[in-house]
C-alpha cells in the first residue's frame, strides 16, 4: 500500500502516544492555511505547514495583462501593504521601459510605503494580540490604524488597495495641506504606539508566554533563508532599506532594529520598533521632499519592454524582502513574472521552531513569524 495521499490524509502507522491534529484551514488561529501537528501529550513532535488554500495565480494572470493593468491585481496578495507589494514591480517596469522618476515622486513613494508598512504591522499586531488572548491589544492597534488609513485615503483615494504607484511615479499629487496633517497624525500615532510598551511588551504575562519559546538561532535564521523582522530578531543586521537602498532611501537616515534573542518575544517586538523607525523616516521624508514639481513622468499608453530583457528588483516590505522578477520579450505584457515573498520564506522556519514546544505556544510562535497566508500563496 504505497498509494499517494495529500498530506495529513494518509493513514499511517504511528506510535499510540502520538496524535495528529489539523489546525485550520477554518480555524481562527491559523489564517487561510492548515498546520498539521503531531503531539505527544502536550508537546509537539512534528509539524507540517500546508499552505495553498488561497492561491489565485497572480503570476500567471500577469502574463495576460499589460504593464499598467497588472497594477490592480498585483496588490491583492496583501491589501494592507499594497504599496510595498507593488513597489518592486513598479521599479522593475521602470528599468525595463527605461523611464526616469521625478524627485518628488520618489519621496511620495517612500512616505506611502512607510505608511503602508505601519498599517500592515498594526493589523498583524492586532491579530497577534488576539492570538494570545489579549483583547485590548486587538482593539488599540485596530483603532489607531485608522489614523494612517485616513492619511493613505487622502493621498491615494482608497483606504486599502490604493493602486497608487505606477511606472514613472505616482498616480496623483498630494492634496493641499497634506504635509501638516500627515506630520500631526504621525506624531500622534507614534505617541500612541509608545503606550503599547506598558500594556503589551512590558506586560509580565506576555513575557512569560513568549520569552524563550521558538528560539531561532542566528545560524539557523541565515541557513533557513528567513527574512525581514524574523531575521533581524535573530541578531542579523539586514534591512534592504540600508543594504540595497532603492529610490531615496540612501538620502534618509534609516536605523535598523536588531534583537539578539531570536525568540517569539523578539520577533513580536522588532516590527513594533520598525514602526517607530517608520515614523522617523516619514518625518525626514516630509522635510526633505521638494515642495513642488512633477510626480509622474508621462508614459506611453501601452508601454513595451525593450527586446528580450529581464530585471529583478526587491524592496523591504512589512514581512521582509519582497522581490519581483520580470522577463520581457518586447511585447506589452510581461513574458514571465515571479514574486519572491517574505511570508513564504519565513514559514519554512515553522517546523523547526515548533519541535518540542507546547501546543499552547503554537499560535504565538506561528504568528510571530510575520506571515501572511494570502501573500505566501500568491
Amino acid at each position, binding site marked *: 500500500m504505497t498509494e499517494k495521499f495529500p498530506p495529513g490524509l494518509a493513514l499511517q502507522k504511528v506510535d499510540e502516544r502520538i496524535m495528529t491534529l489539523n489546525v485550520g484551514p477554518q480555524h481562527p488561529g491559523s489564517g487561510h492555511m492548515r498546520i498539521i501537528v503531531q503531539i505527544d501529550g502536550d508537546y509537539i513532535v512534528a509539524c507540517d505547514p500546508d499552505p495553498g488554500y488561497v492561491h489565485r495565480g497572480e503570476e500567471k494572470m500577469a502574463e*495576460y*495583462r*499589460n504593464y*499598467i*493593468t*497588472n*497594477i*490592480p*491585481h498585483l496588490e491583492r496578495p496583501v491589501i494592507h501593504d499594497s504599496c510595498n507589494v507593488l513597489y518592486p514591480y513598479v521599479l522593475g517596469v521602470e528599468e525595463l521601459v527605461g523611464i526616469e522618476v521625478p524627485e518628488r515622486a520618489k519621496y511620495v513613494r517612500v512616505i506611502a510605503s512607510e505608511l503602508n508598512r505601519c498599517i500592515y504591522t498594526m493589523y498583524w499586531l492586532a491579530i497577534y494580540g488576539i492570538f494570545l488572548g489579549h483583547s*485590548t491589544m486587538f482593539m488599540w492597534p485596530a*483603532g489607531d490604524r*485608522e*489614523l494612517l488609513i*485616513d492619511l493613505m*485615503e*487622502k*493621498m*491615494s*483615494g*482608497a483606504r486599502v*488597495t490604493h*493602486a497608487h504607484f505606477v511606472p514613472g511615479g505616482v*498616480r*496623483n*499629487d*498630494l*492634496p*493641499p495641506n*497634506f504635509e501638516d496633517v500627515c506630520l*500631526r*497624525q504621525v506624531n*500622534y500615532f507614534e505617541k500612541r504606539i509608545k*503606550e503599547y510598551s*506598558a*500594556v*503589551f511588551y*512590558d*506586560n*509580565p*504575562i506576555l*513575557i512569560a508566554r513568549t520569552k524563550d519559546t521558538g528560539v531561532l538561532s542566528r545560524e539557523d535564521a541565515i541557513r533557513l533563508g528567513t527574512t525581514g523582522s524574523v531575521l533581524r530578531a535573530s541578531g542579523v543586521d539586514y534591512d534592504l532599506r540600508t543594504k540595497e537602498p532603492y529610490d531615496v532611501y540612501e538620502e534618509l537616515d534609516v536605523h535598523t532594529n536588531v534583537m539578539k534573542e531570536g525568540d517569539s518575544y523578539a520577533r513580536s517586538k522588532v516590527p513594533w520598533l520598525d514602526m517607530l523607525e517608520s515614523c522617523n523616516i516619514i518625518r525626514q521624508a516630509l522635510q526633505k521632499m521638494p515642495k513642488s514639481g*512633477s*510626480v*509622474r513622468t*508621462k*508614459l506611453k*499608453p501601452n508601454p513595451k519592454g525593450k527586446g528580450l530583457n529581464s530585471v529583478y528588483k526587491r524592496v523591504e516590505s512589512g514581512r521582509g524582502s519582497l522581490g519581483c522578477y520580470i522577463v520581457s520579450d518586447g511585447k506589452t505584457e510581461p513574458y514571465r513574472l515571479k514574486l519572491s515573498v517574505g511570508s513564504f520564506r519565513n514559514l519554512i522556519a515553522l517546523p523547526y521552531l515548533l519541535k518540542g514546544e507546547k501546543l499552547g505556544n503554537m499560535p504565538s510562535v506561528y504568528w510571530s513569524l510575520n506571515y501572511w497566508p494570502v501573500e505566501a500563496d500568491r
Partner: protein
Amino acid sequence: MGTATGIIRALNSGIKHIAIKRFTLRYPEEKLKFAGDGYQFDPSTGVGIAGLKGRHMLFHDHCTGCQLCSIACEGVAEAIAMVKVPDQQKQNKKSIMPQIDYGKCVFCGLCVDACPFYALYMTNDYELSSFSKEGLIYTPAQLQVKPYVAQDSEIQITSRGATHG
C-alpha cells in the same frame, strides 16, 4: 521589573483611557470628510488630482464614445460596457457611452486615467449598496447625476486624544 509592578503598570495604562475621548466614528450619523471632490485626472499633464475613488461621474457633453475607458477596464474588472444612448451629442457620432457595473468595479480609477477628454471623473459617493445585482449597474443617465454627499467629520487631535470631530 517585578511581576506585580508590570501588571500594575499595564492596568494603569488601560485606566488612563477612561479620560481619553472616543475615537470611534459613528458611521451612519457621522461621515468622514475627504480631501477634494473625488479623484480626477488631467490628461494634459498626465497627473491625477487627489480625491476619493468613489462612484464615477460622466459628462455627456465631453464623452466622444472612444471606448478607451472600456479598453482600460478589460484587464482589470471588465466592469465597463459601452451602450447606446438616446440623446445625440455633436462630438459623439456613434452615440455610445460607458455603463458601469459596480458589482465588478474595483475602484482603481484606471478608466479615469485613460479618458483624454475630461469626461469621466470619480466622486466622493461610496454608498452604493443595492438589493439586486441589476441595481448596481449604472447607466450613462445615472452616471450623469452629481451625487449628494454630506461628509463633515474629520480626525482632530486634542490634548485628550484623537477624535472624529
